[in-house]
């Protein structure tokens, strides 16, 4: 860290004073609960985590079942599709936003920010009303003569995916936008001057140079998508995602140890994705 070495000794001591309380908070609010979950996942079923408890890996071994693996696979698949769609829709949006004039730019930015003002839950219920069989979307399609019978959108995989992309896409747009915005336009111009076709210039110059934003967006969308399950539940999708599995394990089966093991696996997956991202030269996402 370059700026650290430039700091005076006094300043660095002072900053340590300020860091200490923050570190204490981080330890009590993040690390301790996590250690408790880890501990609970490592003791026998029905036991609570305490010092001197006998450790076992049984709770993790219990997860090695075809149907549980399928549940993890389903969650990863949904998260992957959400990320892919968010990118396909979000990147062009971010591109237009970055290249738009000042007035348009702030308007588009508002469109991205405003949804954050209300709860995602409320907005998803709005989607449900739009999508229902006798709802406005079907009415329009019928009015245009495109369909004869109402389409039952709700409950389909597509409706779940729509809700996911809708809730997550901002996290793709914002980092992509900041990358594209920072991109030196003269580089693209140079490529064009040297005879590159527009799409070639985009693929060879714009895309690689905005990769940090794309990667950051992918991580920001993918990681929460793996854990979210209430959107699928609200859309009536009848999916079993890791989140459902953990909730049912804790509340219905009342097996906190296996539930904790599931949670730990989810955390490992998330951490693995983050590490992969850092390995590939990713930014710190403002986390560290």
């Amino acid at each position, binding site marked *: 860290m370059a700026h650290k070495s430039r700091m005076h000794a006094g300043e660095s001591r002072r900053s340590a004073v300020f860091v200490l309380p923050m570190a204490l908070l981080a330890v009590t609010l993040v690390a301790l609960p996590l250690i408790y979950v880890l501990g609970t996942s490592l003791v026998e079923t029905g036991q609570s985590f305490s010092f001197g408890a006998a450790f076992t890996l049984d709770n993790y071994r219990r997860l090695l079942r075809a149907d549980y693996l399928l549940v993890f696979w389903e969650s990863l698949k949904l998260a992957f599709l959400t990320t892919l769609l968010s990118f396909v829709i979000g990147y062009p949006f971010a591109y237009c936003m970055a290249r738009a004039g000042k007035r348009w730019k702030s308007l588009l930015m508002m469109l991205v920010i405003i949804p954050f003002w209300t709860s995602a839950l409320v907005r998803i219920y709005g989607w449900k009303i739009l999508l229902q069989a006798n709802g406005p979307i079907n009415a329009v399609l019928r009015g245009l003569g495109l369909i004869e019978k109402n389409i039952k959108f709700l*409950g389909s995989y597509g409706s779940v995916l729509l809700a996911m992309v809708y809730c997550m896409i901002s996290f793709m747009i914002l980092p992509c936008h900041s990358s594209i915005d920072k991109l030196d336009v003269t580089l693209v111009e140079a490529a064009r001057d040297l005879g590159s076709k527009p799409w070639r210039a985009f693929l060879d110059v714009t895309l690689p140079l905005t990769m940090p934003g794309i990667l950051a967006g992918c991580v920001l969308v993918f990681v929460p998508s793996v854990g979210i399950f209430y959107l699928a539940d609200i859309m009536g999708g009848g999916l079993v995602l890791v989140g459902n599995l953990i909730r049912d394990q804790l509340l219905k089966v009342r097996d906190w140890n296996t539930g904790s093991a599931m949670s730990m696996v989810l955390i490992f997956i998330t951490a693995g994705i983050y590490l992969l991202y850092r390995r590939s030269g990713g930014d710190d996402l403002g986390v560290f």
Partner: protein
Amino acid sequence: MKKKGLWIAVAVVLIVAVLAAIVLIPKLTTKKATEEPVLNIFTWEGYIDYETVIKPFEEETGIKVNYATFASNEEMYEKLSAVNGGDYDIILASDYILNTTREAGLMQKFDTGIVTNLGNLDEGFTHQYFDPDSEYVVPYVSGIPLIVYDPSAVDIEIKGFNDLWNPALKDSLGLIDDARVTIGMVLLSMGQSMNTTDDAVLAEAAEKLAALKDNIHVLEYENLHNYLVSGDVSVAYTFTPFVALALDANPDLKVVWPEEGLGFGIDGCFIPVNAPHAKNANQFLEFLLRPEIAAVCAEWQYYCSPNAAAMEVISDWYKENPVFSGIYDRIGDAEYVKNLSSADEQKFQDIWTTFKLSL
């Protein structure tokens, strides 16, 4: 750099202050509370109406009611165990958790010297498994999940659970996204108990459930009535208030009391073993049992009333609604979803997970 440090310091002070407030404020208020006529109620959000129940009680008795909420029965049980049956004076929760709570010794008997109107209850709702001698729990409302369907969108007449497997209902069912309730429904359709733990019977149920796959359009725990009213499903199996709401929105819908058997549930009030204001709590139970109050609660919550005296004074609208009135004829066929051991509960969850993955 200096400015940044200052901001961080301010942020830290703020966070610490908020944390301190969260820890200290409840302590200060509960300390004060013991000196006053107070009643601490603990239940779901919106489950006891303020205007029609709590406010009249406060005006009549001068007791100040505090209303704390939980999101699930399990959360209530965790919290009550953590305070060793103290802090709260009245808890309103569901049958199976009432049973767990009583067995854990976290309830106290109500005082029949104060609660003198227990006779208002219909006998079908007293002496239940969670309170065999009717000395701990005062039933508040009761519900039975029912089938409700749109006859204009369905070609067959539905009389019971087994009709749901009819191929004519392809892609048109909305069922409750809950292992115990929906596998329980399959078990009832087979003439079995919803609480069976017999592996052979459960395997048969799993097979029968798998055959229902093509007819299911939506699985959701609550709000299935919306799908019915919007035309997304034409048949739903859902809880009492949602059946009633569906009927309100579309009076042409048909309600079916399944011929094979019924699921059943009671939500009831009890006084925790170390309740700080047990006398006030007993007064409140007496208040809830009064016919006019019980009637208001049933009408407000859209559930069936276990209070026979309330049925005398309840509105005609409620009395004539088939969702609410049918219970008295069929209570003998009704069965609770009871709490099972973790291992048995796991069997139901496994069947449900496998089934949902196949959808």
